């Protein structure tokens, strides 16, 4: 068994040995690096990591430098999860044959991918990994847009958001489809642990990551990652935006155990109106024009309905 890393406070956590270096080319204010560092800091175990093509990959390994002090694979856009699954399957096979030099090291297999590489092009590959039951963790850095290729919409882009391929203007309010519910889809795979996390709630996040690393089987983590460039807010406001995301309940933090047992892991003391979350980001600016204001009301209703549903699911224990 691996030892669980004890994290007492934020200072200790932020100064503990980094396996993901701060020196990278991500935009100032990008939440990706915060999330990745927290994931890697949650354990002292060996790590086998992959990153699908995306902002994280292109900005953290520019020859001759790397931000990763761990085994790291960059593969295609769609198959980071599968590469990690292959490594994990071989690790198991070598272990079964008694051919591991240090069989007690218990490395953790983690794939990182954006929402495009998880919700869209990588979807069937992740589904395959979860159906086969690899002992791995897939972390989505969910910034709700293809940020690396110029801000096109993905199936994670929420209603009303303006993206390059769903632009808002005179005839359109931007993205017209609601965000794909990946949490429910991955829970339906029977995953032992599925959780939505946000780096502003770092203790909550570390707890979820540590739990995910301890359970056997494929674990899905959806990490909300505010994108200063495409969400259009000032780089110094990242944590404020993350706070708005969790405290307006646009991104409720919850976990689903064994595909059924749902627990809400964070209840904001003061729930903030969704309008404030929308107003803080340029991608929703047009929603405040008279013709689209009805969408703000719909947003609030949708968020309320989801929160209501999550609470009922938690209560029902099914």
């Amino acid at each position, binding site marked *: 068994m691996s030892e669980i890393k004890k994290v007492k406070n934020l200072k200790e956590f932020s100064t503990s040995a980094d396996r993901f270096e701060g020196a990278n080319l991500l935009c100032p204010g990008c939440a990706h690096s915060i999330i990745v560092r927290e994931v890697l800091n949650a354990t002292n175990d060996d790590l086998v990591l992959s990153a699908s093509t995306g902002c994280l990959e292109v900005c953290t390994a520019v020859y001759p430098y790397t931000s990763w002090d761990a085994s790291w694979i960059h593969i295609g856009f769609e198959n980071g999860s599968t590469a990690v699954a292959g490594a994990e399957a071989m690790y198991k096979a070598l272990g079964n044959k008694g051919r591991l030099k240090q069989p007690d090291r218990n490395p953790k297999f983690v794939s990182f991918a954006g929402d495009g590489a998880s919700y869209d*092009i990588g979807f069937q590959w992740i589904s395959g990994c979860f159906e086969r039951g690899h002992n791995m963790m897939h972390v989505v850095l969910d910034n709700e847009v293809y940020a690396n*290729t110029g801000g*096109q919409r993905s199936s994670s882009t929420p209603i009303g958001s303006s993206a390059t*391929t769903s632009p808002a203007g005179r005839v359109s309010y931007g993205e017209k489809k609601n965000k794909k519910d990946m949490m429910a889809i991955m829970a339906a795979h029977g995953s032992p642990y599925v959780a939505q996390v946000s780096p502003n709630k770092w203790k909550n996040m570390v707890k979820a990551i540590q739990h995910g690393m301890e359970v056997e089987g494929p674990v899905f983590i959806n990490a909300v990652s505010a994108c200063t460039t495409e969400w259009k807010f000032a780089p110094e406001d990242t944590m404020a935006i993350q706070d708005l995301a969790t405290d307006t309940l646009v991104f409720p933090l919850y976990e689903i155990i064994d595909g059924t047992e749902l627990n809400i892991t964070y209840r904001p003391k003061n729930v903030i109106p969704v309008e404030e979350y929308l107003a803080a980001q340029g991608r929703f600016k047009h929603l405040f024009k008279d013709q689209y204001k009805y969408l703000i009301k719909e947003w609030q209703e949708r968020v309320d309905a989801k929160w209501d549903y999550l609470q009922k699911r938690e209560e029902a224990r099914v």
Partner: protein
Amino acid sequence: MREVISTGNQLAAKAAVEAGAMFFGGYPITPSSEIMHESSDMLPAVGGTCIQMEDEIAGISAALGASMTGVKSFTATSGPGISLKAEQIGLGFIAEIPLVIINVMRGGPSTGLPTRVSQADIGQAQYPTHGDYASITLCAGSLTECYTETVRAFNLAETYMTPVFMLLDETIGHMHGKAEIPDLEEIQANNVTRATNYCEPADYLPYDAEMNKPAVLNPMFKGYKYHVTGLHHGPTGFPSEDAYQCEFNIERLVGKINTVHLENNGLDDLPDYEEVDLEDAEVCIIAYGSIALGAYEAVQKLRAEGIKAGLFRPIMIWPSPINRLEEIGAKFKDKILVTELNMGQYSREIERIIKRNDFTKLLKANGRPIAPAEMVAKVKEMM
């Protein structure tokens, strides 16, 4: 003539819409994404549809499906996207579904050099998928050609009932400048409309084509029921393993392009290549795509220094202008400089045609362009 200030990618999208395209299915990929951005704006404005699909395979599949309804359809991507689309490109070849595939080339293999220029998909455009078939591939050498050759790609796709590749490279795709393009009326007057067989629906045989002729596929929703498959098929479209039928099919698929190209010295009336100062030249530079822009300058500089240089620039890459290349091989002997941004993919085709390899190559595959000065220096070495 119209004067526009635009980028190569925007011009390709504009050309598609003005050539009559009504459907785009694609997926974001650098350096081609602007074609989708433009299409998402321009297609709905003319009653067409632009869909960003969930991946590259879905992008081309939707475009193939849309094409079966009778509309001109296209997709745009870069090398890694073509790799993913490869299986469906094969379906396009065997089922004879017209489609334009724009590839804005970047460095490869795999993720390669996403933001840097390359011409390393020349070989991929010839044989993108398994099996026997013949590819039609055009390559834009200027902003104007990003427009005119894309229009031509649509016309060729509809004429020959086949996927057609339109190659741009990162430099030309992102190049921003003035271009002169033909008037819209002129383009529309020459747009090819897909052939339709207005027979009784009961008598309709979609794949009952003569040797070296394309199938006549009637649009969906018109009352003609037929079978479309990636399997070998007979005249009805239903699968067949009949030896004669399979042989006839393959010979027809290859012949409708390669044989027709050879017999008619081209697939249409438009030029398959451009020649600059070649009549009195003593040395011939062969270059295509954005590299040809540097080659024009190299020719001028060499002539200013008293070396009579000329340029041969292929526009239709596949099928290659075999007859003319044979003549050039015979005329210039070893005084030929082939310059391209790969490890010699088009040079191999020239070797194959002129049956010699005594010419000089100036190749680069590091994501950087080839400067005119490098070409000038290389030619001086040869003289």
